[in-house]
């Protein structure tokens, strides 16, 4: 088990180094940050000086090595754009992104699983068809449009929820949460709904397909023949057995919720990491972009590791290898 873990961790580090390297190669094509950093009145000489100070005149490989060695020392640098420490900036925004992802993940589970069960048990009912059509639309409409539609309906027309931002915050040490006040919930509900639609659709369809499959198997027939009540057959025998692959998918999808949140955060002006990333791309703010990519890389690696470990626990055959 320890060997397995170590192997995975080493693999994870390699993956992150590759991510950072690819990112550094791409940064070259994003343009020149120095033009954004100085006013119109700056001369070419001054710009060249700044490039030297920042080490932008060095070859990519050199810049990359410096970046990695700095990170190894826990040094993420300062943003070119706001001149503030990158790590501070990320610390300020991390709670917003994680809370949004968590709430939207919960929403997609709480809505997706019941919808999936219902449409599996009553495949021909009118409501099931609505669920399927609705989920098809959820996948087809781009996130930013869903977001704008929700803003228009619930903020502009009905005036129920605020259209943007994050409010009602309570500070718990360095972590700020919006989940402890009603006001806070009124801010998070629209973006979380927008973000959850895609995952919810996925979960609904997966639960439905898995459960239809399971309900056809012999042991369900046998359970029915034993005269067990429908409720027990459907939930204890049917649902339980169809959830195993669903849980894997949910785990892996959590990573993409964080990644997907870039668009949702921009539309709702949600002060999370995704919004920070978008702003830094436009400015070619290399320290912030690289820190974000490292963060997302690490997040995926850790998530995969956890899934692997969970597998090893669930499925004894993996441990034997």
């Amino acid at each position, binding site marked *: 088990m320890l060997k397995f873990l170590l192997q995975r961790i080493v693999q994870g580090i390699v993956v992150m180094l590759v991510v950072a390297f690819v990112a550094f190669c791409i940064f070259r*094509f*994003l*343009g*020149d*940050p120095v*033009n*954004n*950093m*100085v*006013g*119109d*009145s*700056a*001369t*070419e*000489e001054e*710009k060249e*000086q*700044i490039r030297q*100070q*920042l080490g932008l005149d060095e070859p990519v490989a050199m810049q990359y090595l410096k970046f990695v060695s700095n990170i190894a020392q826990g*040094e993420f*640098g*300062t943003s*070119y*754009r*706001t*001149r*503030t*420490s990158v790590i*501070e*900036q990320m610390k*300020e925004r991390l709670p917003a992104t994680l809370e949004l992802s968590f709430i939207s993940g919960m929403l997609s589970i709480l809505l997706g699983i019941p919808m999936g069960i219902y449409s599996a048990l009553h495949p021909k009912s009118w409501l099931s068809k609505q669920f399927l059509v609705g989920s098809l639309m959820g996948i087809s409409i781009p996130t*930013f449009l869903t977001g*704008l539609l929700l*803003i*228009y309906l619930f*903020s*502009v027309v009905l*005036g129920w929820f*605020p*259209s*943007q*931002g994050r409010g009602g915050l309570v500070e718990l040490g360095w972590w700020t949460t919006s989940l402890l006040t009603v006001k806070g919930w009124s801010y998070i509900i629209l973006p979380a709904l927008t973000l959850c639609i895609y995952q919810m659709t996925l979960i609904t369809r997966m639960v439905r397909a898995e459960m239809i499959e399971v309900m056809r198997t012999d042991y369900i027939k046998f359970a029915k023949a034993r005269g067990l009540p429908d409720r027990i057959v459907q939930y204890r025998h049917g649902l339980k057995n169809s959830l195993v692959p669903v849980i894997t998918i949910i785990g892996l999808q959590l990573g993409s919720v964080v990644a997907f949140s870039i668009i949702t955060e*921009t*539309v*709702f*002006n949600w*002060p999370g990491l995704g*919004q*920070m990333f*978008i*702003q830094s791309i*436009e*400015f*070619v703010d290399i320290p912030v972009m690289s820190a974000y990519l490292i963060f997302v890389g690490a997040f995926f690696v850790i998530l995969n590791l956890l899934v692997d470990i969970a597998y090893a626990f669930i499925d004894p055959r993996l441990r034997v290898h």
Partner: protein
Amino acid sequence: MIKLRSFIKGCIIILILAISNYSIAEQVLRWSSAGDALTMDPHAQNETPTINMNRQIYETLVMRDVNLQMEPGLAEQWKAINDTEWEFSLRKGVKFHDGADFTAEDVKFSIKRAAAPSSDFKNYVATIDNITIVNDHTIRIKTKEPDPILPSYLTFVFMMDKGWSEKHNVAVPQNYGSSEETYAVRHTNGTGPFQLVERKPDLKTILKKNPTYWGGDIALDKVIHTPIKSAPTRIAALVSGELDFVLDPPIQDLQRLKKDDSLNVVSIPQIRTIFLGMDQGSKVLRSNPSLGKNPLSDIRVRKAMYMALDVTAIQQKIMRGLSVPAGMITAPGVKGYTKSLDERLPYDRKQAKSLLAEAGYPDGFTLRLDCPNNRYINDEDICQAVVSMLSRIGIKATLNAQPKSIFFKSVTNSESDFYLLGWGVATLDSEYVFRYLLHSRSKDIGTWNHANYSDPEVDQLIKDIQKELDMNKRDHMIAQVWEKVRDNITYLPLHHQVINWVVSSKFDIPIRASNEPLFKLVKVVR
């Protein structure tokens, strides 16, 4: 029983009065724009949103009023005492937000700070040789050469407290290479109408009124800025009443917003002109080297391109009427602007074609138009229109629209033959246009002259304009330069941008052509 009831009634009335009183007392302006100030260090970034925010907190010796006319700021008056020396009498009794007195020491310190290598305003104070303190409230600024526009440049040099800056180790602006954030990035200490309460970069900035402001009482108690990058979200927040003021509404929404009774749309021509630049100095076209020569160096070709552009169509179709067609690359309000120079050559495709044929290109030629797609209002759409207009006289331009970070890189590296640019005039003096766009290109001057225009006579005139203190003579020379540029068709002017602000009808915010709101001037209407 009755007594108790009336007691309760009384309590409720007092409570209601207290609440309503409270809401009258607290006047909060909530506003938004796409971008945030980059830093609160007043000398670190010469960029409009940053200057906008700092101008509410910090002040300058010379200020500009609503109509952008110069007015006394922290200096009550100033005069040139000889060709190279200015004397400024400072306002007395002014205090910084932390209570320190504003004195001549602070002025000397602040100008020196603005001249530091890590300052982004060093070119604005480059002519200053030294500063002498005459007494606590009088200073003399000696320039290396006569400098008629020094007061104008000083409208950008914010005054900081020497003691505070030294105490917090921010006597110079933050260095680009430094890995640590300095104190001045999130903390301020100015003399201005507002003081900083909370600063979260890109998230929220809260200012509160300076109760002891020297300029009199201010109507607003608090100003809250929330940057919102997505334009539809910004407008939705305004319409749903979460914001009171949006600085940069998208022009396609204005018609609809005008119909909303709770909102006012105000407009004014901006000090920024959009134009096309053509590299006339290069031997061959970079985007079409096989042609073997550079057609843009031929004035007939440039004139043909000028006459092929239907700017009225651009104004109507793309700018929705919200632009002013331009004949010169500087806007009304700038010294040297005249109505007659702003007249355009007629739009005449026939003549354009015959000019092209005369120049030896009866079938036109191919080149690339470089264009930003996130810098100016509808920039990419304008370029698309230009491409299709030029194609009608046979010039096949391919459009290369890119984000500003890439676009400006290729333009400043001289990789473009033909590009779209906008130019604002910070000092409101034509010299600012000449210095960057018309003087022959070198390391320190003509840095934005990517048209590679070079005329020794114009260079000499610009040198003289920079030194001439006799305003009549100077105005005459400025006019001469503009006429030369017009006759040479150095640039193809398109239009002056128009600014639109959307304000809740609860407030009256005087609009300024520099696109800088001054919150001390805001009035509460109801």
